[in-house]
């Protein structure tokens, strides 16, 4: 809470453009990682194609702004259109693929995201392929501070919106499905419906983050559809803490900050340029030693301490989220 307020005030006190951009980036990826965690952490769906929806959001906004006068209304419309597209596509994809066993599903999402990447590269008249294109953003966003605040507000809204979502009766069923799919079925819950609902919600929000990402760069190319984007989400979620909402936010901050500093260090030694390799190592270590991520590990510590005083507090681990 305090951090939240601090984030609102921070840019007014400390005016550093590159910090502002970095934090905006964090908010955007926090939104994206939270959407991924709805799949991975709350429903137990492993998707390798989440970039698909990120890319749809990014291109929707970029193409619209390229071809029309950039107004706030248009931006809002374009974002909504992207979300709508993603809702439809995630519904169709979910309907087709979520029946499959989880590893087949993971592979199929990988292939589908690849399909979008190829399509974006081939459809040059619209996307200019890998070279990408720049576009104008509305006047209001010329001030980086405005954009910072918009992203922050959206992140907070998404956070609380998803929090309510996962604490709803439906959200509790998602957790149950993650824990034991067959049992959820024999309680009378139609598992496929819930998986589709989760992937629709995740797809829509991922699209929102993609749109914001493109707006922040004022540029788009096919990289928004690449595996790197999905891996970022995976990394952020796992390092921060799967199955919590604050975890992905924290993970986004860590990854983005580390990325920023490591790129800075690239002048010192070339190894820092290959930051993805470093993250690969960090990732493996994290999975080995902190399978619950930062948030999960902290909670475990706290609940262990409480346990000494009161035996029956282990529920904290699941209750919050």
């Amino acid at each position, binding site marked *: 809470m305090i951090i939240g307020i601090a984030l609102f005030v921070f840019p007014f006190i400390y005016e550093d453009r590159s910090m502002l951009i970095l934090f905006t980036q964090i908010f955007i990826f926090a939104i994206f990682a939270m959407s991924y965690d709805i799949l991975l952490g709350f429903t137990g769906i492993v998707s390798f194609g989440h970039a698909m929806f990120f890319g749809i959001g990014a291109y929707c906004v970029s193409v619209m702004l390229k071809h029309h006068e950039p107004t706030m209304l248009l931006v809002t419309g374009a974002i909504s259109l992207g979300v709508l597209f993603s809702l439809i596509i995630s519904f169709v994809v979910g309907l087709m693929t979520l029946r499959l066993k989880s590893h087949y599903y993971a592979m199929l999402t990988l292939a589908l995201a690849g399909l979008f990447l190829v399509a974006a590269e081939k459809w040059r008249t619209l996307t200019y392929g890998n070279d990408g294109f720049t576009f104008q953003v509305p006047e209001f966003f010329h001030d980086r501070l405005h954009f910072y605040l918009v992203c922050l507000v959206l992140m907070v809204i998404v956070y609380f919106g998803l929090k*309510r*979502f996962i*604490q*709803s*009766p*439906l*959200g*509790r*069923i998602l*957790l*149950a499905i993650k*824990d*034991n799919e*067959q*049992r*959820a*079925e*024999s*309680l*009378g*819950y*139609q*598992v496929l*419906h819930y998986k589709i*609902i989760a992937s629709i919600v995740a797809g829509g929000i991922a699209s929102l983050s993609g749109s914001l990402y493109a707006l922040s760069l004022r540029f788009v190319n096919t990289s928004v559809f690449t595996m790197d984007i999905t891996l970022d989400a995976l990394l952020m979620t796992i390092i921060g803490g799967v199955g919590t909402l604050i975890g992905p936010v924290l993970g986004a901050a860590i990854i983005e900050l580390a990325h920023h500093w490591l790129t800075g260090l690239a002048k010192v030694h070339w190894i820092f340029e290959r930051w993805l390799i470093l993250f690969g190592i960090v990732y493996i270590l994290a999975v080995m030693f902190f399978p619950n991520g930062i948030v999960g590990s902290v909670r475990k510590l706290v609940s262990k301490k409480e346990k000494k005083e009161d035996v*029956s*507090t*282990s*529920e904290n*681990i*699941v*209750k919050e989220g």
Partner: protein
Amino acid sequence: MVAILETKNLGITFGTHQAVQDVSFSVEKNEFKSIIGPNGAGKTTLFNLLSGQLKPTKGEIYLKGQQITGSSVVERTRLGIGRSFQITNVFPNLTVLENVRLAVQSQAKLRYQAFTHYRSYQKFEEKALHWLHVALLDHKENTLAINLAHGEKRKLEMAMLLALEPELLLLDEPTAGMSLEDVPAILQVIKKIKEEGDKTILLIEHKMDMIMDLSDRIMVLFNGKLLAEGTPREIMDNELVQSAYLGGLYDEFTSQS
């Protein structure tokens, strides 16, 4: 009397092994029927066929006259078939209360509500606590299911089944693996459900003495086939059962499995 459940020539084959063969039987409304038979006789497999976890390779199943052979697990649950599992099957990383609350929520048909807070349905929690109390699992509601002792997991399984309030209960060895002092209490719970008189119960048990006074009727399953059916008295006196199940064959069978 109306048959609530009926099977016709029900069978399933795993590869070449016929786990259940040509089983035809019917259960009347509010009847208490037990299924006995040695390990590997096909009792659990028969339950899997009835609850929809497995699809039969042969035969039909009817619930209240309606064919349900092809229905899914979800559909059958919603039609009123509830089951407990021999090998404990709960939500390990959720609390005991949440395990039962999910069953209550399903029973209340609250399946797609995504906007309210789940705790605003206080009734669900109260009901869940009630079922935990009935299943003799008081004061454990905040424990994660994974941390329960084996016998407690069996009780949780029971509470989840009761919370679904099914018309037809399929109980698969509910006392298996329980500590001896808990067994009478769980039998007491089953007895209580029976005495309320509005539930149909199918109970699998391979300890014969336990079910003699509980059951209206008993079926004996042996090598996937229905060997005999009758009142407890009749089963006791049945020579085939004597020789196959209670006699030498039984020992031979259990010692190999």
